């Protein structure tokens, strides 16, 4: 059975990772070549090659080249980065609070970010940041929210998982109310739509300028989780076991908190709050690979990247000429797939079958 061989056999997992990597490259190529004006794969590859090598292209191809190199490529790559990052952060969040319902937004990050975003849309704050005003405000809003959650859920014994979840959920309600109030009192009236579209996630604004930061943060998150993966396995046994097995649960939880906040705030500021990926991809990975964290930290980001590239691709095609928000698309694809998977396998998390 593939399930057990993937779980125990290292070579099978390496093969799967290579396969997914190759499929990701293919998906990226497709996402770049397909669009309102489709460009054949061969020409797409040629443009990409000349973009990388700085080769010359004929003047008649300049429009197509610009579409490929300046619009579709950064968008497709950003989709992969965001998908990979949110999946890795989902693993971090679930390990941190030891709860299967956790996702990167559990710490009130998404609602904090939405307050920042709606403040930009309605009040025009941070206008000196120009096109980055929304990103900057979302980032700051996310940081403020998570600092508040941390401060309020802290006690002498560190941050207790359940209190962290409850504080995060409660503060999320508070920030959502604040965001609603800002939008409600907006004079222009179209703020609600703009904010909602942003909250459901979009990669329409992805540019080369944002990629290095988002890419570096995502790689950093994945690398750190890979390095600490054995400790995450230990943490899942419970705090007492963890301490006796040589992993300080409080220290690890603090690091995971910091990692989740920085990673999620960065990704939210470039792509909005794309839900579902960070919750589902970690579970999907564990269903396929078993519970160990080290293989999951490599494969969940790959799954997430492939998933998000296709989600973004489909969201551009579903209702032309408009784009479906990514949050809608992730749910449309993810919900049935996930429900089927958890029903089929004897999947266990949190002791619940």
């Amino acid at each position: 059975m593939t399930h057990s061989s993937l779980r125990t056999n290292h070579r099978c997992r390496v093969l799967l990772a290579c396969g997914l990597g190759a499929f990701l490259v293919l998906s990226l190529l497709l996402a770049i070549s397909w669009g309102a004006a489709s460009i054949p794969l061969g020409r797409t590859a040629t443009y990409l090659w000349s973009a990388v090598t700085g080769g010359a292209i004929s003047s008649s191809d300049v429009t197509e080249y610009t579409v490929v190199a300046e619009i579709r490529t950064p968008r497709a790559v950003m989709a992969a980065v965001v998908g990979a990052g949110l999946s890795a952060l989902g693993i971090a969040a679930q390990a941190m609070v030891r709860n299967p319902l956790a996702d990167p937004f559990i710490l009130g990050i998404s609602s904090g970010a939405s307050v920042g975003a709606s403040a930009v849309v309605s009040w025009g704050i941070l206008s000196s940041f120009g096109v980055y005003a929304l990103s900057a405000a979302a980032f700051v809003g996310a940081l403020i929210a998570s600092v508040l959650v941390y401060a309020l859920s802290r006690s002498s014994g560190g941050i207790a998982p359940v209190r962290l979840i409850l504080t995060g959920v409660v503060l999320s309600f508070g920030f959502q109310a604040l965001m609603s109030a800002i939008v409600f009192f907006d004079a222009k009236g179209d703020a609600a739509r703009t904010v909602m579209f942003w909250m459901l996630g979009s990669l329409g604004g992805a540019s080369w300028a944002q990629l290095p930061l988002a890419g570096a943060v995502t790689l950093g998150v994945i690398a750190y989780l890979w390095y600490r993966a054995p400790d995450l396995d230990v943490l899942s046994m419970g705090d007492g076991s963890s301490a006796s097995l040589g992993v300080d649960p409080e220290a690890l939880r603090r690091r995971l908190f910091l990692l989740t906040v920085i990673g999620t705030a960065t990704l939210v500021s470039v792509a909005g709050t794309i839900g579902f990926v960070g919750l589902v991809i970690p579970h999907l990975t564990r269903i396929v690979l078993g519970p160990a964290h080290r293989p999951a930290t490599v494969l969940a980001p790959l799954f997430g990247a492939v998933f998000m590239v296709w989600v973004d691709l489909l969201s551009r095609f579903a209702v032309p000429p408009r784009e479906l928000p990514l949050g809608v698309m992730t749910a449309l694809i993810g919900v049935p797939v996930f429900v089927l998977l958890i029903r089929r396998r004897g999947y266990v998390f949190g002791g619940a079958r």
Partner: protein
Amino acid sequence: MKVNDALVLDEVSIPVAGRDVVREVSLTISPGDVVGLVGPNGCGKSTMLKALYRALRPSSGAVLIDGSRMDRLSFRESASLLAALPQEERGDLDFTVAEVVALGAAAHPTPACRTEQVVATAMARTGVQCLADRSFLGLSGGERQRTLLARALAQRTPYLLLDEPTNHLDLRYQVELVGLLRKLAHQTTAPGGPNPSDDESPTGTSTRPPGIIMALHDLNLAASACNRVVVMDRGRIVADGPPTARLDADLIEKVYAVRPLVTTRPDNGAPHFLFPW
């Protein structure tokens, strides 16, 4: 106070939710000790063990392990000196029994080629080798308890803390546990390690029997299985010594408010208590 080959509590107080549950307790556990920690509910047995395996932090006093202050050691260092069987912890993820035991082996620097052997030895000692590929979360309470004990043994530490090790165990495994503890107390390598004849000891240094301390509810078990009992009451130690000398009807009545009938076991001469029910 500094003792180089012992686990020492020096005037340790441990708060839980703001209240000192263990108050200025001093205790020394030496290699070869099999200490039964007994006392009524809420007397601080588990709290004291939790502070020893670092799930709780003492508010005052010091814990010294082989001469080093525990709070100056990294968690990884202390986990290679002291293993624990915590009470009532299930974990969340669907690891197999062998994977859970391997977490214990990994807490101790082990060459990868030896891990499998360490895990197999530890599983064999608690009788869970036949469950190796079963899901840990799908086990019965007793099977889970034996798996966690195997995990602690796989850490091959010179000190072993067991919090209610007989919980959920049926009669057979309770008896086997006592036998295992006796064997451990008389062997000269760390628990879970290879046979004494194997000169490639993974720890390299441990040529002494382990020091074992376990919280127990069953006084008869404590009297028979341990060479030393420590009786706690309301956060303090009220008696400490060999069971034959220290466990008597007066002390038990004072601590538990129940007066037992005391007899002597015909086989090993340990005191045996009959309770008025």
